[in-house]
């Protein structure tokens, strides 16, 4: 009978063991994030850990998107995307007809518009860009398609597309209009 108490430590003991494994001031390791797997014709498998806003493949947004959070677009966007200090990822199902201005831009789907990446632009093997690319660093994977110009700027030559600065924008994503298409 008394062995039960030993087998089941009290809540106090649990807290002690917890604090012993994690020194004061250090948060316990977060639970592993669930990864989403995407594929196109069984040829491309991509592990995505969306952080910030996510537009799923059934979403259509027409208008201007501004903010400071990362954005994952697997749906359709028509208008403009200005996330000055954040990352924009266009997923394999993403169809963007808009200029994109962000710190980092990753394209796996199709984009018609200018890409202005203040830090880097990456175009994956399924990426299709019709528009000019201006950035400090660029990465192209085999199979990437670009119809337009590629220009690499120096760090001291920040470019602006003439858009209002994203840092002064609201902290959350704003869309003028959004239509969720039902399946």
């Amino acid at each position: 009978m008394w062995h039960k108490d030993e087998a089941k430590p009290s809540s106090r003991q649990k807290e002690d063991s917890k604090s012993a494994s994690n020194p004061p001031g250090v948060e316990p390791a977060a639970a592993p994030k669930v990864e989403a797997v995407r594929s196109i014709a069984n040829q491309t498998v991509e592990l995505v850990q969306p952080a910030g806003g996510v537009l799923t493949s059934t979403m259509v947004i027409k208008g201007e998107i501004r903010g400071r959070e990362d954005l994952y677009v697997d749906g359709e966007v028509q208008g403009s995307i200005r996330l000055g200090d954040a990352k924009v990822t266009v997923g394999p199902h993403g169809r963007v007809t808009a200029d994109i201005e962000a710190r980092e831009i990753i394209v796996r789907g199709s984009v018609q518009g200018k890409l202005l990446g203040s830090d880097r632009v990456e175009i994956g093997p399924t990426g299709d860009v019709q528009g000019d690319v201006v950035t400090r660093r660029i990465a192209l994977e085999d199979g990437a398609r670009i119809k337009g110009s590629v220009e690499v700027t120096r760090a001291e030559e920040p470019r602006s597309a003439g858009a209002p600065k994203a840092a002064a924008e609201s902290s959350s994503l704003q869309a003028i209009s959004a239509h969720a298409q039902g399946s």
Partner: protein
Amino acid sequence: MSFFDKLRAGNGYDSPSRIHSARSGHAATAVAKASVSAPPGPGYVQRAGRQSNGLKEFLWTLDGIGHGHLLDLGPAWQTTIMFFLERGFKVYTEDLLSAWKDFLDADAKRIREQSANADPALASPASRAERFLAGSLRYPDGTFDAVLMWDLLDYLDAEMSTRVVARVTSLMRDGGAVLAIFHNRKPEGFHRYRILDAQRVELVSTPSPIAAHRIYQNREISNFFMRFRSSKSFVGRDQLRENLFVK
């Protein structure tokens, strides 16, 4: 440091002593045998690339241009784009062959759907070429200092080839250079080309988007580029003719 100096410093490129006919302003044709080393095995070409005298001459011609504009009509390869970006060029890419394939597929589908009402005139090579070019190679005249055409013309029909060269000619500035490749015989496989360094081009085997293939004679090639001031041809042992045309 000039463009050519950078190439020489970084890649051990040996400066040719002769003066370009293009710079002297006289039209001239020079044919030279390229010193292409025969690949010992199938995988060798992929790893080591192909010595390209045409590329060397192309880069030599671009020496001194500085911040020029280059149009690559092949796929967007990281190595090719970075090669020219690092040398101050603004690089434009437009994979014309893939776009032509997509256009032909869409056109064939449209014709099938309108089988009864289709206008036969739209299926003519001239009409096809005109409609395709309405959405391709749309740049202001005189934009480019250099164009990488690769072996694009071998895979287009004669009508398209003529129109593409005419469009490219108008897009180029005077003194600009085109690097084009032609096959002397039907190739065993389809390749894409990407630049490894100032002397080597890598041939990347890919599925051919266009089944048709044409072998052009020298006279036909000269007719395509008749508005250019000079041309040079380098024939390799692998039966590739690299042609450099200067406007």
